[in-house]
C-alpha cells in the first residue's frame, strides 16, 4: 500500500474518531514509513456491525427485564460485553449458578454481599442493579 492510498475514513461512533492509529505504507521513494490513519470504511463497518449486534441484543434483554421475564443480571452482563462463562469467572461461581440468578424470583432473594459483588464487577452501584429501569422512568417524567 502506498502512502497516498492509506484511507482516512473516521470511525464516527463510540469515540472511535478520537484515535488515529499508526499504519505502515510505502512512500514515493519506495521506503516504508509510519503514517496515521483515521480508519478504513471496510474495517469501520466490521467494528460497527459487532457493536450493533451487541446493542440489539441489549435492547432485547432490556425489554425482557422490564417485562419481568429476566433479572437485571443478564442486562448488565451484556452491557459489560461478557458472556456467562466470563461472568462466572469474575464471580467465582459455576455457570449454572449465574444462570439461576437470571430468574427474577431468585434474584430477589440474593444476599446483599452477592449483589454488591455483581455491582462491583458491572462497575455500577448496587442501587442501580436492584432498581432496574427506575432512573429511566424518572427521565421520562
Amino acid at each position, binding site marked *: 500500500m502506498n502512502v497516498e492510498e492509506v484511507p482516512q475514513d473516521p470511525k464516527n461512533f463510540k469515540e472511535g474518531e478520537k484515535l488515529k492509529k499508526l499504519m505502515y505504507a510505502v512512500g514515493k521513494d519506495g521506503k516504508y514509513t509510519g503514517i496515521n490513519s483515521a480508519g478504513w470504511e471496510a*474495517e469501520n463497518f*466490521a467494528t460497527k456491525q459487532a457493536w450493533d449486534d451487541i446493542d440489539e441484543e441489549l435492547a432485547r434483554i432490556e425489554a425482557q427485564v422490564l417485562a419481568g421475564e429476566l433479572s437485571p443480571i443478564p442486562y448488565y452482563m451484556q452491557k459489560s460485553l461478557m*458472556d456467562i462463562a466470563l461472568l462466572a469467572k469474575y464471580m467465582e461461581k459455576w455457570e449454572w449458578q449465574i444462570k439461576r440468578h437470571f430468574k427474577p424470583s431468585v434474584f430477589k432473594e440474593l444476599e446483599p454481599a452477592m449483589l454488591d459483588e455483581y455491582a462491583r464487577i458491572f462497575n455500577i452501584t448496587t442501587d442501580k442493579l436492584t432498581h432496574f429501569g427506575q432512573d429511566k422512568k424518572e427521565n421520562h417524567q
Partner: protein
Amino acid sequence: MSEHEFQHYQHAHCESGVTANLLRHEGIDISEPMAFGIGAGLFFGHLPFLKIAGIPGTTYRIWPGAIFKRVAQRLDIKIQTQRFSYPAKGMKALDDALAAGKPTGMLGSVFYLPYLPEAFRFHFNAHNYVAYGKRGDQYLISDPIIEEPALIAPADLVKSRFAKGTPEPKGFMYNIISTPKTINLAKAIEQGIKQTCFFMLSPPVPWFGNKAIFLLADKIKDYPKKLEPRKAALFLGNIIRMQEEIGTGGAGFRYLFAAFLQEAGTLLRRDDLLQFSTRLTKIGDDWRNFAYHAARQMKDRKSDLVSYDDLSDLLKKCGQQELELFREMKKMKW
C-alpha cells in the same frame, strides 16, 4: 532514570511497540518493524473450535509475550518477567519497579482502559503497555497504539492487569535488567527470519501457519451453507477486524513485516530481502482486497457482487503467494 526521560512513541502494534519503546529507553535505537521481525511476530492461525463470544478465533500474529522475549534473547538483553496470584502483590511490585526508575511493560485487558475510545474496548486480554511513573496516585501510561501518553487510576489498572478470561494476564509484567555494550542485529535478523519461516511452514496441524489460511478459505466457502446470514456476516467481520482494526499496521501485520524486510535488506545490503519486502507488500494489498470485498459482502447480505466462493479464492491467492514467498525465504543463504 526519571519518568521525564521516558519517551513515548506511537506504534502500530502494542507488543512490538512496547519492545521498541523500552529498548530505546535503554539507549538501543531500534524501530518497531525491526523489533517485530527479530521477534518473528508474523504468523497466521485459525481456530474454529476456540470461539470467543461465539465467533471462531483468527490471528495474524504470534502469541502474546513471544516478541518481547525473543527480541531480548536475540539481542542478549537480560529481562525479568513476573506473574502474580494476588493483585495487591502485583501492584506493589509495579510501584517498587517505578520507584526504582524502571519503566515496566505489562499485559492487560483493553476493556478496563478508560483512556481508549469505547469503540475498541472489548475483553481482549493480551494488550501491552508501559507504566513509567506516577502523578499522585495515578499511573503514567505509554500505550503504543495511541498518540500521547495517558493517565490511569489504580482501580482501572488493577482490573486490566488481573482481568479474567482467555488468556488471563495475572498481572504479568516485564522489565529490562541490563543491556550489552554492542548488539548484533545481523545475527538477530537471521534468527527472526528463520523462525518466521519455520512457524509459517512447519506446523503439522491445519490450524497454524500458512495451512491455516487455506483452512479459513475452506470454512468461508461453507459459510452460506452452514450459517444464517447474520452469523456469517459477524464471522467475516471478525476476520476483517483482526486483520485491520487496530494494532496490525494494516493487512494483518504483513506491511509491518515487509517494512522489517526492507530495513534488514538495507542494513545488510541484500537485494533478496528487498525483493521479498516488495512481494510481501503486494501480498498485503491482496489481503486488503479480500477485506474490502468481505465488507461489501457483509453490507449487502443478499448481494451477489462477490460470493463467498470468490472470497475464498481471494484468500487462497494470499495463502499461495505467502507459501511461495516463505519457501524461498527459508532457502536464503546466510
